[in-house]
């Protein structure tokens, strides 16, 4: 199809504003997917995504639209992840497009993620098409929200389409707008090849499959290609598109979005944001925007069964393929054996990776509580970056410790500003600014330690604002803090995987909360287990898990045998998922206890 009849676009939105539902309606309206085949939210292919109602991975679908002007247009709809943790991936998938449909909930208005995504789209020079969704809700105020978009973002909303993605109202008008308002790709098919890699996944038969947007030139089977950032070279075996079924094509030309397979076995070779070019007639420069992603949150991942270390390694390698920002390297724990220290973009990212490892690779994992990277300045004048509390040098060798801070922007309805400020103070936040956004909401700016954000800030924020606040943050730099390592002892033995680095003034409080939580989580065993929190050998909190006295089925007659046996088998399964450390059996969730304890 003629390049001027191609439209590449994404849909961007705040979580729950209806992005996936709109994508579904578009697929239906263009007959890409027949209604009866339609599983709700077609683009979210992973179970996990559908369950959580969030989009984690991007996906690209080709569809043909018969416009009202009588001509056919080739659309590539590129889905983007909808969470702050994945902003680099969002930015790369946006870079694969020329335009974006901005979906705003006509009842809720502009939210933190709406802004964040719009800025990413503007950074990538995209044309933005505002759309108001859920206009059929009784609480919808399309005119108010339009004004808000114009004030906050500066987009002209006079012609914004008012839709209901759920009922399908006016979705056809959105398609017409895409044809009329969004630009066609501008590249040159005769120029040297530049294809942007914006996603990849592993197929056990074909190796790594990369999703690309061809910006210039043409990509065909048998082409010799080079990944410009990694330098890896391959011969293309197949190219194609997804409709959303996989379709093999003769070529991908300028403006087209599709996949390539090239028997790529080395996971490291394919990185999101990289540019593919031809080996013989290479482009002078790669496309802009490639970045090595730096994780912000770290935790240890260990197989419950040590024998599955290699399986975990393989699984992590495979996940890294379509999750460029996941990092991992081997580490050892006295308590947990061999495992990996893994780096994530944020807490949700960590959660998702963990769940995918357990579900898709059938692994039983122990995750240690998350940590940030601390800069430890030692008395000998050197600095060590520490991402694992257990690795902190002895106190006498430490001159001072710096920890990462973030600039946080919190959008919050007026009535919760007081509660939110209290929370930020409690979390060692430093006030920067407070702006009035409109009649209802204010924008708070704070400098906060990242470690407090990953600790329980989200949960606390949700509960003190009834879920109305939204948070966006980025690393602002390192600052010196009074930090100490807090060890946890079970039955007198330090469990290295339970050590945390805490702000000194919080230590007593947190030590206490931690021991109480562990007492709740760790089941009674045949002997009493002291649970202690200690700093530098000095015990600051202590409780006891009393010995198990009674664990028996009261009633067991002839008819009970099957049931009682099943019950015991279930308990045995639970026990299998526990880790024997010394003489104490510790359930998986104990290692994450620090995240679920209640400090108040």
């Amino acid at each position, binding site marked *: 199809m003629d390049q001027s009849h191609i439209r590449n676009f994404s849909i961007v939105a705040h979580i729950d504003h209806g992005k996936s539902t709109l994508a579904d309606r578009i697929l239906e309206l263009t007959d890409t997917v027949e209604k009866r085949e339609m599983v709700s939210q077609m683009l979210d292919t992973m179970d996990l995504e559908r369950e959580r109602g969030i989009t984690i991975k991007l996906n690209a679908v080709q569809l043909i639209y018969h416009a009202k002007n009588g001509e056919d247009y080739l659309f590539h709809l590129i889905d983007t992840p909808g969470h702050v943790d994945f902003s680099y991936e969002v930015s790369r998938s946006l870079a694969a497009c020329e335009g974006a449909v901005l979906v705003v909930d006509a009842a809720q208005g502009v939210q933190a993620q709406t802004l964040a995504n719009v800025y990413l789209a503007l950074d990538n020079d995209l044309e933005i098409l505002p759309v108001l969704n859920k206009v059929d809700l009784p609480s919808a105020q399309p005119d108010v929200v339009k004004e808000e978009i114009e004030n906050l973002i500066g987009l002209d909303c006079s012609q914004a389409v008012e839709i209901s993605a759920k009922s399908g109202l006016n979705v056809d008008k959105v398609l017409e707008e895409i044809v009329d308002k969004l630009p066609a790709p501008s590249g040159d098919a005769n120029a040297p090849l530049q294809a942007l890699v914006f996603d990849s996944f592993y197929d056990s038969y074909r190796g790594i499959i990369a999703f690309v947007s061809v910006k210039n030139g043409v990509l065909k089977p048998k082409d010799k290609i080079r990944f410009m950032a990694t330098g890896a070279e391959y011969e293309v075996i197949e190219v194609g598109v997804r409709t959303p079924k996989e379709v093999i094509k003769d070529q991908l030309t300028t403006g087209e979005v599709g996949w390539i397979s090239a028997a790529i076995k080395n996971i490291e070779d394919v990185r999101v944001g990289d540019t593919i070019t031809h080996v013989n007639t290479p482009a002078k420069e790669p496309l802009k925007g490639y970045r090595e992603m730096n994780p912000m949150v770290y935790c240890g991942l260990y197989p419950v069964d040590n024998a599955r270390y290699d399986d975990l390694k393989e699984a992590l390698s495979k996940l890294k393929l379509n999750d460029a920002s996941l990092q991992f390297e081997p580490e050892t724990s006295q308590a947990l054996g061999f495992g990996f220290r893994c780096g994530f973009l944020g807490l949700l990212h960590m959660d998702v990776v963990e769940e995918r490892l357990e579900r898709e690779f059938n692994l039983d994992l122990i995750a240690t509580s998350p940590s940030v990277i601390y800069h430890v300045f030692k008395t000998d004048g050197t600095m060590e970056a520490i991402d694992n509390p257990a690795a902190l040098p002895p106190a006498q060798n430490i001159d001072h410790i710096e920890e990462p801070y973030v600039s946080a922007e919190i959008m919050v309805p007026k009535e919760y500003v007081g509660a939110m400020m209290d929370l930020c103070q409690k979390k060692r936040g430093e006030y920067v600014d407070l702006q009035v956004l409109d009649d209802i909401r204010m924008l708070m700016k704070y400098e906060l330690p990242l470690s407090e954000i990953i600790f329980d800030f989200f949960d606390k924020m949700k509960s003190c604002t009834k879920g109305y606040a939204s948070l966006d943050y980025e690393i602002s730099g390192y600052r010196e803090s009074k930090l100490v390592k807090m060890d946890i002892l079970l039955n007198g033995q330090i469990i290295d995987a339970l050590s945390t680095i805490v702000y000194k003034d919080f230590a007593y409080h947190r030590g206490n909360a931690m021991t109480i939580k562990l007492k709740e989580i760790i089941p*009674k065993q*045949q002997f009493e287990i002291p649970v202690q929190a200690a700093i530098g050998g000095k015990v600051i909190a202590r409780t006891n898990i*009393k010995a*198990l*006295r*009674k*664990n*028996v*089925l*009261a*009633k*067991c*007659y*002839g*008819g009970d*045998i*099957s049931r*009682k*046996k099943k019950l*015991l*088998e279930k*308990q*045995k399964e639970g*026990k299998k998922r526990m880790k024997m450390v010394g003489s104490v059996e510790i359930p998986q969730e104990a290692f994450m206890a620090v995240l679920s304890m209640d400090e108040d």
Partner: protein
Amino acid sequence: MNLYVHLPFCDHICFYCDFKRKVSISKKEYIDALYKEFTSLNIDSIDTLYFGGGTPSSLSIDELKQIGNWFIPYLSKDYEWTIECNPDSLTKDKIILFKEMGVNRISLGVQSFQDELLQKIGRHHSSFDVYRCINDLRECDLKNISIDLIYALPNQTLKQVQNDVNIFLSLQLPHCSIYSLQIEENSVFGKQHLKPADQDLEADMYDCICQTLKGYHHYEISSFCLNGYESKHNLVYWSDKDFTGIGWGSSGKEKGIRYDHASNYNDYLLDPLKRYFIETTKEDLMFEAIMMSLRTTFGLNVKQFNEKYKIDFYECYKKTIQKYQNYFIQSKDSLVCTQEGRNILNTILIDFLE
């Protein structure tokens, strides 16, 4: 033969119960189906006979007579015939009938002697009914009486439990089964998501019960008796022997193979002879034998076990027995749990589940 007969009729549903039972259904249809199943049995003689439920005493005199008469010709010389009864439906007439038929053991569902607590768990009798029943039973020379008690009930105190056990003692009855409340998913309590009692309090209650009943033979985790009054029928379950079950939802074990009946009531009525055999491996059967026998002070009969399963028990479970050696009394012929061992039997059994 050891025979269990399920009579699934109740006048009302108790909050803790999840057995197969029905309120107000036509008993005739069921009795007809049960008779069909009874006549299909190949009975030589009956050593132990157990009418359970449900509430067998909620049947009418005529119905009880009709059913009881089927079995009388087969009773062996030293038979034990138990009928489960509720204090609110066990009338003097029924007691007289039981005595005439030859019933020689009564299991009375007392649960507690505290009227307030009885109400909270959905029982419709009072402690007065219990005293009346015991009096009537003794008058009719039915002296082998067992009562059921439940502890760890919602908001029950240690003192209340002690009180219940003391009343049992003062009644000078030969047998008592005391269960801690188990909140079954399909019971009223389960549906109400009732929270179980504190583990430590429950352990204190159990200690108190065992202490108070020191003069009784604590022959199984929940069973106490005066010498010679062990329940012969229940010991069958706990000693890896065969038993036959008839009636809706009942289970049995013949030649080591276990079976259930239809779990749907109408399915049972349509085909009462249908048995659903449970696939078990030798390992399953071995585990079940251990699970059941370690509950009693008689323990596991090692010789019988080795012969039956053609295996060396001590060799086969060396690791687990070693691990819990302080909780066992070992001899060549038997393995018995100590009181401490029986208290944490679940923990021990999980290790036997290899």
